């Protein structure tokens, strides 16, 4: 592409937002996580391991940063001068943010990661050649690489444990990248059922594994396009828009008492996960 062509057709090359010219209809899967409700119990992470055939890598590989937790609980200590037992902290469940303009997609040399029409960031294992460029370009560091052939590694799925593997999800081999899929196997099943019945997926009909297992209901997941969905209402109540890189409420004088925000929004990757900020002791 020549520079003149690039400049002449700039509008076609650079969209302000990918959904400007092609809005999501009828599905856009999105999430909202209430950090105030999150108690850091790790049930979501465990549910993800069970649902998505994630290998448990063990202490040594964990130390090398080769852990495969698609859903991880990040822990942030409060820097308020207090020492450990009294020191405050908060949890932040972190998984693939299913960015609308995903940085990982543009750098994949083989097109193994793409945007789907219902607003997901797909990862096609059989297409992946393991260049790991996507992981390098991911601002959230939520992509995980299979450094080992886990299905044949000792003690990952010992004999008979392989019967607990989810048949709807590929068991990944060595040399492919993987990440949170928003439990795409469940979404697709629900979409296909709904389509066969001539309707769209209803609110509450499909849940992700993490949402299902959350004891405090901190995670809500649903179709952002559907005005009846809980996630739509939450995004609207918090005045967080999918197609903005800076939410207007931030610009108000004296800040805002709304809690919704998206992580690293200013990078213009337009994440599909909204977090609800924790109400801190100091702020009350």
């Amino acid at each position, binding site marked *: 592409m020549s520079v003149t062509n690039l400049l002449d057709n700039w509008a076609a090359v650079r969209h302000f937002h990918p959904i400007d010219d092609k809005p999501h209809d*009828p599905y856009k899967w999105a999430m909202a996580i209430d950090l105030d409700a999150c108690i850091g119990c790790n049930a979501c992470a465990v549910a993800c391991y069970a649902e998505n055939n994630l290998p448990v890598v063990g202490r040594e590989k964990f130390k090398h940063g080769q852990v495969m937790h698609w859903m991880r609980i990040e822990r942030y200590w409060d820097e308020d001068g207090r020492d450990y037992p009294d020191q405050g902290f908060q949890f932040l469940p972190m998984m693939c943010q299913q960015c609308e303009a995903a940085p990982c997609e543009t750098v994949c040399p083989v097109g193994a990661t793409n945007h789907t029409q219902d607003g997901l960031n797909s990862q096609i294992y059989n297409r992946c050649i393991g260049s790991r460029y996507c992981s390098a370009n991911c601002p959230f560091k939520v992509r995980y690489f299979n450094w080992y052939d886990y299905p044949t590694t000792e003690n990952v799925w010992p004999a008979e444990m392989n019967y607990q593997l989810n048949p709807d999800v590929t068991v990944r081999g060595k040399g492919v990248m993987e990440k949170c899929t928003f439990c795409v196997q469940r979404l697709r099943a629900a979409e296909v059922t709904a389509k066969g019945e001539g309707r769209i997926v209803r609110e509450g009909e499909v849940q992700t594994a993490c949402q299902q297992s959350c004891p405090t209901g901190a995670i809500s997941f649903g179709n952002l396009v559907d005005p009846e969905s809980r996630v739509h209402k939450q995004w609207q109540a918090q005045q967080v828009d999918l197609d903005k890189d800076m939410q207007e409420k931030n610009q108000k004088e004296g800040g805002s008492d709304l809690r919704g925000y998206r992580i690293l929004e200013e990078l213009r990757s337009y994440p599909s996960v909204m977090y609800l900020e924790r109400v801190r002791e100091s702020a009350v």
Partner: protein
Amino acid sequence: MHRYLYFPVMLAGFLMAIGCYAATDQQPTLTTEDDLGPQIQQPIEFPHYRHAGNRNTVDLTNSDPTKGGMEINCQYCHTYARRSLTAGIPPLQKCVGCHQNIPSVRDKPRIVELFKYWDAKKAIPWKKVHDLPDFVRFNHERHIKRFIEQQGRPVQEVCGYCHGQVKEMTTARRQKPITMGWCVSCHMKEHVVVVANKDGIPEGGTPLGKQAYWYTFQKPAETKNAAGELTAKGPNDCWLCHK
């Protein structure tokens, strides 16, 4: 010049020869341009033509198996196709359910074999004929819903799009390539969007130009063919089959 080239050229040729040998050794031999799969030996030589084949219209009482079938709906035995990803193999119960009431063929060698399994309370170890790789999750349900339930096409024709003329076979054999390129060749065509539902109820999703679109999970751009009919392509989302 030639002396320098001699060894690399020989080496390349040698490697190619090994590669070709390995390739032909691993892949099933494709005998026709319609990509016939290998003939797979099944535990019982199940006659598809006898069950699903066309009825002998000349002599309805003719019981010669080579001259007519029962025209049994494919979905009578492969009952999971219309409600799940997989078409499924019928349980032994289904075979016996009919055959215990058909005494005329009870002493035929295949039926004797069938009842041996039944008496031993063992499942018949059928072998997979249309064996897709583990990372492919083809959805039977969607295709049955669209072609048979919504468009009302004949069952055997619809199944035959991918499975070939099973009604003329004994044990099934792969007749189509069933490769991704082959699947996509159909999905990339512009198909006319028609409402064939008998009650006039549009199927699935948001209507496009007062009609339903079947094809994608997102509303496609309106396209029209030369005759002015609305057309749409099949889904091209990788995550439909690979996940």
